[in-house]
């Protein structure tokens, strides 16, 4: 079976024929060549594949592209115009919230989801909100500092 889907990704509409089993993460990476979204565990645990789906942070390895038909997706490529950084990205840069950067796109979207609900989170609330995002490099301290800096800069 082939399905017709229409997704708006980073403000641009894409109409494609897909297999129902195509995951949103593969639609983004393999069909649209938007490889900023990473696949870490592929088992819903690490959060590297987190994107915004209609304004909600979701793990795109655990969502069918078919489920996102008609929806709006934001990936790390679409967060700021080319050559510029979103305020959350800026904060991760300033506070060394990344080393290899593999977890970063997911961390940024989990952070954006947190800040949309709570503009001034405590360190504990930040750790709780990032529970679904694993980082193998930083030890998390600088990620927490980055989120605090983003909040202080009024990032949403």
């Amino acid at each position, binding site marked *: 079976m082939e399905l017709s889907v229409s997704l708006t990704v980073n403000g641009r509409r894409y109409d494609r024929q897909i297999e129902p089993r195509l995951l949103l993460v593969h639609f983004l990476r393999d069909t649209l060549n938007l490889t900023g979204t990473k696949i870490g565990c592929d088992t819903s645990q690490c959060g590297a594949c987190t994107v915004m789906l209609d304004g909600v942070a979701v793990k795109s390895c655990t969502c069918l592209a078919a489920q996102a038909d008609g929806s709006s997706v934001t990936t790390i490529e679409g967060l700021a115009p080319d050559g510029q950084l979103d305020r959350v990205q800026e904060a991760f840069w300033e506070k060394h919230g990344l080393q290899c950067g593999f977890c970063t796109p997911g961390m940024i979207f989990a952070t954006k989801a947190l800040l949309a609900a709570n503009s001034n989170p405590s360190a504990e609330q930040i750790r709780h909100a990032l*529970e679904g995002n694993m980082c193998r490099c930083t030890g998390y301290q600088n990620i927490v500092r980055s989120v605090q800096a983003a909040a202080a800069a009024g990032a949403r």
Partner: protein
Amino acid sequence: MYSANFDYHRAKSLSDAQRLLASNPGAKLLAGGHSLIPLMKLRLASPSAVVDIGRIPELRGISKSGDGIRIGSLTTHAEIAASADVQKSAAALAEAAGLVGDPAVRSRGTIGGNVAHADPASDLPTVLVALDAKIVAIGPKGERTISADGFFTGIMSTTLADDEVITAIVVPALAKEQGSAYVKFSHPASRYAVIGVAASVTSSGGTCSAARVALGGLVPHATRANAVEKALVGGGLDTTAIGTAAAKVGTDLGNEVTGDIFASAEYRTAVAPVYVKRAIAAAAARAGLA
């Protein structure tokens, strides 16, 4: 990872979902997908077709009904945790929903999917058994209401038929001086329950007049702790009485305890009374007893 191929159908309404289930033998319902998609990717499930019920408005939302709170099956864990009505009259449920997985899981996963999937390590079945909740399902023969206590029959098995759709969960209204709580020992990576305990206690002039305590995570399915409940009813709810009752959980667990590489059955059995005690104490505090 790719699942096996399947046909995808999106249901526009509840009756459409029932029609699609009937015309696609072997089809599985898809709600939030946070249990089914991982299973399909691992090819532990390979349904020939998937009926996506994720966009049926009539299955979503929380409302007060005559007999308590009615929660549509598509309501997400995040919505339940954030609901003032649920926090007020089913504190244990709001607590448990807020402890499911992580924020992204809570934004997609639904109460109906959680209950139908009946993972022994999930949180909501335990709470629904303790709160004496009812599961409302519709099938070709019409609607039926099933008591949560008795619905869960084994690892990922329930009394729900393949052609039935859960439409809502009804949590009874809180009695006077009744309180509930859920405490959980989360697996550090997946956040699933290694041990989950839900308690609901009612006081009558300072004495415990009713108690329901349910266990999850360490047993094949959400189960009532009858010996603990029996020890509570008729007594006080001070720390000593709660501790004595909680110690009876060993009798309830028997040799049904599950172990894995993270936590052995012996370890879970040894730690269980601590969680039982905490759950009862928190419920008692909410009932105004402790």
